[in-house]
């Protein structure tokens, strides 16, 4: 049986065993589709205001209702997918690459590389995300790029730590020694022998982290950092809708908040599913 067929069979087995994970994968596909094709799918222009139709509860014309400026909530929710996902993906990608490079180096060579990386990650971890983001915004200005950088920096320690531990476990493994005997230099061993082995647990970490990254992006815009009106983004929509919740207009905040929840839930389930796929012994 070829490697592909074998992987597929294993994949189907895990999916079958865990229908929840299968649902998560389906939802993931939907979210990606929305992010990619959102602007074309949305029934109304997310920025089009219509003062006459403001604060309308959900109806057939507007399934999610309209907000305080008469904009269609559903269109805004759909379009926001791209922005939230975009911010999260950029931040996670940045921190993944830099973090795993740092962690691998620290785990493989130890010594001072390890100590310095450890101190850097300790220092970064001392700053709660929101706190650091506020500091960065205060210093460098309120823009989406700065928010991405702040989120990337905060996520760095997670990747660095996982990479470090996974690399350190394998640092003196038999196959690494054997690779040295086969004429491989240390750097080549790290890249071609060790890294492919730590990729699975790192992928699990990426998936779990994505959920958190989306939450953070939304949370930051909730307190006014990063994305600004009139852009459609889940966090901002909840913030704008917050003032109306206490007076009973619940739909402005509910739909974007639920979309947010669903997306994060999906990524977390995906992460758990990936973990089962990769190493069933470590199911949590």
């Amino acid at each position, binding site marked *: 049986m070829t490697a592909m067929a074998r992987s597929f069979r294993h994949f189907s087995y895990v999916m079958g065993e865990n229908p929840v994970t299968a649902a998560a994968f389906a939802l993931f596909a939907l979210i990606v589709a929305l992010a990619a094709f959102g602007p074309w799918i949305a029934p109304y222009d997310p920025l089009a205001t219509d003062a006459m139709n403001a604060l309308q509860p959900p109806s057939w014309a507007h399934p999610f209702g309209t907000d305080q400026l008469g904009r269609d909530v559903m269109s805004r929710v759909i379009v926001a997918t791209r922005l939230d996902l975009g911010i999260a993906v950029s931040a996670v990608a940045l921190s993944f690459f830099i973090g795993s490079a740092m962690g691998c180096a620290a785990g493989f060579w130890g010594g001072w590389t390890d100590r310095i990386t450890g101190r850097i990650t300790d220092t970064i971890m001392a700053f709660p995300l929101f706190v650091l983001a506020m500091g960065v915004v205060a210093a460098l200005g309120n823009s989406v790029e700065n928010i991405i950088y702040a989120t990337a920096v905060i996520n760095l320690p997670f990747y660095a730590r996982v990479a470090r531990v996974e690399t350190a476990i394998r640092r003196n493994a038999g196959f690494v020694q054997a690779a040295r*005997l*086969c004429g491989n230099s240390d750097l080549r061993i790290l890249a071609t022998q060790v890294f492919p082995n730590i990729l699975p647990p790192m992928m699990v970490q990426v998936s779990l982290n994505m959920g958190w990254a989306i939450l953070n992006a939304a949370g930051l815009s909730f307190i006014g950092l990063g994305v600004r009106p009139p852009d459609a983004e889940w966090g901002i929509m909840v913030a704008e809708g917050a003032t109306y919740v206490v007076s009973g207009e619940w739909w402005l905040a509910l739909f974007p908040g639920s979309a947010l929840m669903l997306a994060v839930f999906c990524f977390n389930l995906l992460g758990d599913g990936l973990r089962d796929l990769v190493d069933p012994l470590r199911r949590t």
Partner: protein
Amino acid sequence: MTGHPILSVQGLCVEFRTRNGTVRALDDVSLQVAKGEVLGIVGERGSGKSVTAFTVIGLLDAAGRAVSGQADYDGVPLLAAGKKSLGEKDLNDLRGREISMIFQNPRAALNPIRPVGKQIEDVLLRHNQATRQDAQRKAVDMLTKVKILEPERRYWAYPFELSGGMCQRVMIAIALACKPRLLIADEPTTGLDVTTQKATMDLMADLTRERGMSVVLITHDLGMAAAYCDRIVVMQKGKIVEAAPVAELFKDPKHPYTKKLLAASPGPDSALGDLTAVPDAPPAVETVSPAAVTKPMATPAAPVSENLLLEVKGLVKTFPRRGAKGGGWVWLKGHKGRNEEADFVAVDGISFSLRRGESLGLVGESGCGKSTTSSIVTRLLDPTAGQVILDGEDITAFKAARFARLPQRSKIQMVFQDPTESLNPRYSAADSIADPLKRLKGLRGGRQLDARIGELAEMVGLPQSLLTRFPHQLSGGQKARVGIARAIAVDPLLLVLDEPTSALDVSVQAVVLQLLDRLKRELGMSYIFVSHDLNVVRLLCERVIVMNKGRIVESGKAEAVLKQPQDPYTRSLIAAIPHFEPAKM
């Protein structure tokens, strides 16, 4: 012996739910242990010997289930498959009080954050064998009984502060504290040094005999079973294939599997060809191509030339102790108060040489420095002092970190102990074998590479169809062959074998040893064979070196050292190897 046997198992069948369906782990297993008897259960990996013990004591994994059969303790049904004969609470009362069990990996089997004395106390208090007032005293008594020195102080010790042998003694103390009548010992000496093994087993034998206890000893080591058991039961793939008193089993084995096991276990007088010479035995599953079928040693050994291939001169290796690095913590060090030894000396000035075509055995227990020596010789590690001269060139002049890129790299290769660990889990067998060919021989890819890989596979008796498989899809023996193929791929002059068969089942070990011997003769390599097992070393090597605490204590021809050891350490090492002694029966 009157009344019931202390343990009686009848027709036990156990199944496990796994990802690949239901697996039958035990198939109609029946055995009996008489009062005061020591029964050995012998088998290789997967034979079901441990599963039997776990089922009897009621500690089977949640995925396992006894589907039929029965087990009785002194007439009282412990379990009767299908119906619950003894509730969990009653069974729990029995455990530790009537039936006890000790396990392998003793340090992991003790609570790491609880003083060992308290762990003994816990059992005493649980079974009402002591009150809170005298529990500590009784625990200390038990520690004395298992011959742990300074028992009052050691009461407060944590497992990580004790050696493996001491941890096993503590486990024995815990198991025997409430004076049970049956002890089940599941591979209690795996992972321990040969001399420690003997001490631990002797202690266990003394204590159990003293108390008239029955023992079930589970082991893969036939020699150990012979030395300590009255009767032996042989298991294969979940079935019992033979049961007999020790003398009878060894002198007149009936089942072909028993004969195969007996033949494959090297003794002081076996020859290499004897290991697989079992008359009317089915052909070994492992071998494939005709070229790889091993023949008894009929071809004479290749001549050993006079040229020195390897010279090791005054090799020294020291490792700095943890915490002694200084640099900021110096002021803390002054407060330590303990021994101020700065460094640990792993290798303390050894010298030896090896001629072309010769095989040298390097023997010793763990911590003697043999692995460090072999690492230095293969240039994976730099020595603190001394030289290694290979084929006339001083290879210690190059740093280990740079050695991988030098042409000299292909002159020495290594076969590792654990075939699973030494293969990259994400590389297929072909990828692993191709690695040195690409790096050291410059074979880029395509037909030339594939042809060479195919050639190597055939040389080591690995079927071509297995080349695309990954390590988790290969058996232990097959993985070992891949490791060997990779090592010989670049035509090394010297092959260092670091305990290459200790992780393999004894029957597989026999085949691999014969393969190694054949390769040596066909390819004209020289070997350094590192092992703790003198009997195995004797089969492949002309000369042997015995190491202890970083020094060479004895060296000479293998036969001579084994039959007439001069050094007291060598003598104690040989004496500690458990084996069948017909004179004792």
